[in-house]
């Protein structure tokens, strides 16, 4: 099949009308969280845009991120973007396997050297020379280093690729690291989330497609347009939080009334992601709307940030043992200091010499 060179042609070949194309542009504009007034500019850019090659590498991951992207029903913006992009290598989605698959990657790399987008999901184990995860006998580390050399930009998809995720959680037996720790000479966009919201993945790709560069990022390398506000700031349960109305269990009156889930461990206040606005399953709902607190999956180290059902204001870990040790140590030190004081006092009493009248007279003279 001859792949169309531009989005306009691609849509034409799928018998999408001009009206449909403009609708797509409007959706893309909103997906990139741009103002609607940008729509004509987006349409012009997309008409001319070339079809970028995408190489997708999966390392230490659970395939949840790919599932997230593909579990959308057609026709969706995700599908259009996916069709529009030339996804030249993806373990799970490609038909080829074994040597043929690896050859497809090499071919895509050499055809589009310096131009392709490298999408990565999963973290990279670096301990013991990276032996803990290999593909076709090549370690993830080596494959990343080899493939990134010809990439124009890298998109780290999912919390594992962005921040290390589950494999990186304590005690991190494989020495898993995120992409940004290994790639320093190419722009890296972190699309975090476990998994990330499909529209955010496609939004970032659409941004690159439209403007030929990566979007503005926050201090963790995440696109600001999607990760600029916290879940808490956009949460529809926020008025209950402000009034101090909380669900205490998952089936009490508070839960039935849709009150705030803070006490059930919601990490919305410290989590930056677009769930509360973009939502999941074609905009149907998001965890908090379904009655479960946010677990903070788009933040670094979220697996090590305490229990999912432990409120944010409670500490991480138990204090019992340390508190017990503190009592024992404090009691020992207090008793020792007290006894020392008593001994000193007794000694002072023993050494106390009484002054007689005769002594005083002696001093006077």
């Amino acid at each position, binding site marked *: 099949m001859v792949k169309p060179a531009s989005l306009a042609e691609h849509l034409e070949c799928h018998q999408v009308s001009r009206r449909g194309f403009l609708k797509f542009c409007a959706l893309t504009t909103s997906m990139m969280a741009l103002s609607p007034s940008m729509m004509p500019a987006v349409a012009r850019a997309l008409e001319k845009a070339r079809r970028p090659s995408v190489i997708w590498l999966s390392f230490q991951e659970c395939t949840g991120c790919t599932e997230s992207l593909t579990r959308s029903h057609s026709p969706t913006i995700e599908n259009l973007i996916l069709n529009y992009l030339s996804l030249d290598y993806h373990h799970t989605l490609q038909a080829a396997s074994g040597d043929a698959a690896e050859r497809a990657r090499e071919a895509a790399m050499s055809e589009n050297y310096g131009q392709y987008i490298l999408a990565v999901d999963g973290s990279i184990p670096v301990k013991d020379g990276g032996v803990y995860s290999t593909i076709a006998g090549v370690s993830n580390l080596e494959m990343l280093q080899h493939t990134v050399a010809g990439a124009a930009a890298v998109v780290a998809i999912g919390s594992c690729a962005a921040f290390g995720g589950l494999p990186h959680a304590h005690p991190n037996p494989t020495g898993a690291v995120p992409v940004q720790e290994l790639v320093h000479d190419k722009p890296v966009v972190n699309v975090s989330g476990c998994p990330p919201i499909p529209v955010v993945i496609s939004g970032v790709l659409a941004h690159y497609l439209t403007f030929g560069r990566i979007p503005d990022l926050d201090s963790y390398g995440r696109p600001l347009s999607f990760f600029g506000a916290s879940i*808490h700031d956009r949460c529809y349960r926020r008025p209950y939080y402000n009034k101090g109305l909380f669900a205490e269990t998952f089936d009490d009156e508070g839960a039935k009334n849709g009150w705030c889930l803070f006490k059930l461990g919601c990490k919305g206040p410290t989590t930056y992601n677009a769930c509360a606005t973009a939502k999941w399953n074609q905009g149907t709902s998001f965890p908090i709307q379904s009655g479960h607190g946010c677990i903070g999956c788009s933040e670094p180290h979220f697996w090590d940030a305490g229990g999912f059902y432990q409120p944010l204001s409670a500490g991480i870990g138990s*204090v019992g043992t340390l508190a017990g040790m503190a*009592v024992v140590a404090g009691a020992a*030190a*207090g008793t020792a200091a007290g006894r020392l004081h008593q001994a000193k006092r007794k000694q002072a009493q023993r050494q106390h010499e009484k002054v007689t009248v005769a002594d005083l007279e002696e001093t006077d003279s």
Partner: protein
Amino acid sequence: MTSVELLIWVRGPGLQLSLAAFILGMTYRILQTYFLGRAKNLAEPRGSEWVHGIKTIWWRSFFHPGMTVRGYFTIISGYMFHLGFIVTLLFFDQHIELFKSWTGLSWPALPPIVITVTAVLGIAALVAVLVDRFADPVRYLLSDYQDYLCWTLTVLPLVTGLLLAYKIWLPYTSLLTVHIISFELLLVAIPFTKLSHVFTIFIARWYNGAIAGYRGVQS
């Protein structure tokens, strides 16, 4: 260290270590005071030490006319600060969650708006006593660095908590981190500064009451 890593540290090891320092310090201070001992009273007891001691702990918390001899300022600001601080600390939902995670105990909370008022009153009282300390030459001369340190460590959790509740100035993650750190500093400082009166005041009150009880007079 990123802001997320710092928050994880202050919520985890930071909180555990500061609580341990507080418990260790307080146990030390209480036992040390206990072992100071009391001189043997050879007089015949005319009443119960314990009953009077406990009663005094309770009654001295309340206002009585003799307290106003030196004017109302200290009394009003003292009550305002202590009530403001204690209510804010003990009756805010999110604080109760922390105490629950430590002790398994919980109790009803006051609405956040009430807590805002108590926190503001607490801060206002602290500012007023600081101004008074500077304005009154005797008090000013009697003050040393520890008074200002204690004042700062006490006001910080209130101010940072208020900023956090209304998300003023910094992102929530940073404000939460700063607020928890301010609480941890206070915890560590309590046993080793004048702030240890949070416990020792009860010993002192009991002692006063007990002496009076032994003699069969009112404390």
